[in-house]
């Protein structure tokens, strides 16, 4: 969807959208423009509001078709909830609500993007939040539709353009440049996640990543023979059952510039690590058939890390960042890993594979060790659709956050709250290490018993491969997919994490504020 910013003016044709605050949605109580529209329509606006019981609650929409005396095709009133509670996230949701309401109704719309009276929100921030929400909600994935959906009006217009009418066009456009980058990263991740596994093998995933070069991201693909040589025994073990060979993708964004500081003084990069299991059958420990198709999204962690790199590059973020993505397919075959096999990880630690469906942690084990030793990052965050246990623990509302570094954990939690991708801290304690000790190897990949805190076991397992780097693990198995449409997206891939990582970088790792968590460098 195209977003444009234009000076505040009152359109006399087409579709006009007004965002109103709860309790200020009457001809009397509302903004002057509403009163003017009501007067010119000879009271039709007020009568419509009353007839529809529109109170401008969050999520409410009131559409007036061909309102008399105004010349407009359509006047759409969107509720944003109480002005006192109208923050950036509420404004994003209002933007999403209006995009959902207009889709199928209008091709273009003009939106008065002035914060309602009483809202403590900068005008540019408000406008940009509306634009971001609308763009996120308007995303669709229609690559594989070859003909119109039966029963749907094929001629119904698709909302393709939103003109935001703002008091200060330049300020809004400037702010949008940064926000748009995060939106683009999110939508890129959603596309990747939604692609079916026969269209997104590890090699095809790598092809899609190569496209990031256009935005200045360095893309390095390590093919299987190279991984074998390096000793990625855990990751390769997972991939060995599939004819689609595993790969490692390394993405770099050098936003600090090579000359910014002498190399010795430069803190290590911010590192993202993503689980990219392009399809997860479970392997020999095969999953039940019911809902197995959802496992095409088992690469959502890698997709989010890639999306975050795109976001950083698009907004030319002053940060050095690197993403390490383990791309494999966990297939079942005569060559597949067996329960009880022992693999040697890149770190040298051996792992007894109790359950071949606890494969994500094997992939990540090697990726984490590789990222930690090759890049010596200032901080390392991994994202993975890792466990069903985290869904039982936190549902679909929050991702599980496990962290070895309190400052990093706090920054991630703050970033998550700021962008509406909330996390919840979960225990990362050696008490859980007992659960993943093996009688015959250094570790086992999960506890064989029923009713286990598998998310905690997986996290302490990963901890063994993160070295001394300040590290956090986000278990996103509950949040990678929207169970149903909401204000910020249709049902399906959420692209969860892109905006969080982008915000984390901005909050803590960029420009003047850039500082390593944990110990200071020798020259610090």
């Amino acid at each position, binding site marked *: 969807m195209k977003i444009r910013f234009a000076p505040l003016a009152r359109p006399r044709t087409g579709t006009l959208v007004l965002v109103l605050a709860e309790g200020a949605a009457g001809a009397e109580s509302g903004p002057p423009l509403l009163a003017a529209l009501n007067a010119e329509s000879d009271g039709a606006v007020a009568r419509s509001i009353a007839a529809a019981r529109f109170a401008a609650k969050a999520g409410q929409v009131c559409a007036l078709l061909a309102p008399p005396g105004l010349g407009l095709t359509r006047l759409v009133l969107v509720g944003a909830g109480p002005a006192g509670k109208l923050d950036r996230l509420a404004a994003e949701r209002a933007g999403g609500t209006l995009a959902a309401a207009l889709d199928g109704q209008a091709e273009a719309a003009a939106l008065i993007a002035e914060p309602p009276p009483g809202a403590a929100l900068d005008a540019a921030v408000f406008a940009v939040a509306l634009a971001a929400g609308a763009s996120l909600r308007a995303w669709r994935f229609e690559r594989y539709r070859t003909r119109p959906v039966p029963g749907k009006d094929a001629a119904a217009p698709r909302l393709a353009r939103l003109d935001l009418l703002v008091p200060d066009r330049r300020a809004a456009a400037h702010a949008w440049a940064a926000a748009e980058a995060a939106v683009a990263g999110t939508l890129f991740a959603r596309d990747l996640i939604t692609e079916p596994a026969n269209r997104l093998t590890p090699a095809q995933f790598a092809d899609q990543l190569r496209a990031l070069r256009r935005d200045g991201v360095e893309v390095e693909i390590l093919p299987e023979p190279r991984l074998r040589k390096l000793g990625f025994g855990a990751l390769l073990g997972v991939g060995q059952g599939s004819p689609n060979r595993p790969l490692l993708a390394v993405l770099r964004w050098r936003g600090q510039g090579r000359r910014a500081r002498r190399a010795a003084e430069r803190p290590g990069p911010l590192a993202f690590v993503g689980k990219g299991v392009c399809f997860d059958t479970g392997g020999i420990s095969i999953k039940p058939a019911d809902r197995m198709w959802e496992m095409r999204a088992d690469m959502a962690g890698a997709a989010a890390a890639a999306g975050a790199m795109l976001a950083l590059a698009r907004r030319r973020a002053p940060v050095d960042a690197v993403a390490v993505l383990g791309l494999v397919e966990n297939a079942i075959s005569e060559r597949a890993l067996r329960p009880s096999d022992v693999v040697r990880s890149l770190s040298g630690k051996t792992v007894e594979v109790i359950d071949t469906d606890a494969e994500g942690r094997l992939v990540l084990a090697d990726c984490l060790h590789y990222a930690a030793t090759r890049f010596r990052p200032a901080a390392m965050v991994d994202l993975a659709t890792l466990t069903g*246990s985290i869904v*039982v623990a936190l549902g679909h*509302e929050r991702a599980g956050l496990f962290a070895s570094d309190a400052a990093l954990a706090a920054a991630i939690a703050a970033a998550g709250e700021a962008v509406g991708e909330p996390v919840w801290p979960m*225990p990362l304690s050696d008490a859980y290490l007992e659960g993943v000790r093996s009688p015959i190897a250094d570790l086992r990949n999960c506890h064989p018993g029923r009713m286990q*805190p598998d998310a*905690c076991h997986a996290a302490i397992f990963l901890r063994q491969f993160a070295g001394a780097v300040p590290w956090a693990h986000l278990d996103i198995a509950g949040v990678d997919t929207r169970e149903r449409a909401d204000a910020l997206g249709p049902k399906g891939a959420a692209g969860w994490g892109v905006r969080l990582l982008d915000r984390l970088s901005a909050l803590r790792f960029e420009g003047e504020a850039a500082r390593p968590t944990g110990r200071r460098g020798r020259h610090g």
Partner: protein
Amino acid sequence: MTEIRFAAPALPKDGALVLPMAEGTAPAGLAAQVDRALSGRLKAALKAARFAGKKGQTATLLAPGAGLSRVIAVGLGKAAELTEDGIEAAGGTAMAALLAGADLAGAIAADLPQGAPKGIDAAAFAARLALGARLRSYRFDRYRTTEKPEDKPALKAATLLGPDPARAKAAYAPLGRIADGVFITRDLVSEPPNVLNPAVMAERCRALGKLGVKVEVMGPRELRRLGFNTLLAVAQGSANEARVVVMRWNGAPRRGRGKGKGGAAPVAFVGKGVTFDTGGISIKPAAGMEDMKWDMAGAGAVVGLMAALAGRKAKVDAVGIVGLVENMPSGTAQRPGDVVKSYSGQTIEVLNTDAEGRLVLADCLWYCQERFKPRFMVDLATLTGAIIISLGHENAGLFASDDTLAAQIIAAGKATGEECWRMPLGDAYDKQLKSDIADMKNIGGRPGGSITAAQFLQRFVNKVPWAHLDIAGVAWQGKDKPAVPKGATAFGVRLLDRLVAEHYESR
């Protein structure tokens, strides 16, 4: 159970002797005496056993001489890092070692290691060792009739040998009362469900009267009259009638003259007491169902806690309320789909009769806040399997409406080794309780199952500062821990006693 005594440090003439030793230190105090009496063989033996005094390490010398049957060294870890919890663990390990032999009497040397943190003095050191030893000595053998004498523990008494036995004994006195409370809870939780039905458990509560606790027992008629409908709906399938027991300990000093109510509002504890949970019509799978005898562990902890507070004459006004029912399938049992009107007036659609604990607690919580207007309410319940999948057996799930209370509970848990991990609450979870035909339904689905259960409870606390401890993963343990033998843990008694002692007692 083993008697705990205190005496001045003198080398025992016979029996077993435990020597707690800090990491990297040479035998000192009584240990040095032992080494001399054995002509240096203690040091030699410790070296041979590679005993370094690390936490949990032990080394045993059998029939070492000097009349002793055994000398057992127990590691304390580094002296500078000693904690109360760590000393108790060493005391527990000492007791386990003493119980493993044939001795009728044993002794534990209580020489405070050099370099211990300032807050720990010799008396406290001895008292904490004693507490750990006592806690570990617990055994539930009421139903063993054929056990051979040689299989029963022989030890009758353990004596702590330290510099000032009178002070150590005084320091131990309140701790011993806490251990009494813990044992009451462990007994209740260990009892089989054909013995411990709601009426019998209520009678056990009455026994707290002799400690000065005021005990009221309400039966089905009174509960019906009051309107405890959701609690009664859980009980209606069972031949064993429900009870609700209200226990009050008024230990806060009364201000001024007369009996005026004077004091601050009480603190309140509410426990889920499902004496057996079959699941009801939504019946549980047979495998593991026997564990459901301890579905009253929350209530059990509240009873033990009240006994501990009264036993040590805590300067606090405290209320304990337990809802006691049995959840059985039968012709009279509630059905999935039934709608019940709770004591609060809110209606509940019961979609799963195995989500019954929250129904019991709903009425108890509302009643508690309405009648007692407490400073806070903490409830304990073996509420969800989901909390085990979330946190395992390492942490209880803590849900709280009040950050201060939550922080106090977490700290008290750390200090007593009964650890809690805070879990989230929020509107997004609360919404999952929406019912098609009533004010709420009693399940929110598998995702976030412990959280939606807590949200359900929060609808019945009416803005009183409140915390909920989901103890399904920690009420029972399959393995021994130093101060907690396997079986019923009495999780919550020590934690909540500590919470009261640290923050809610008059000084």
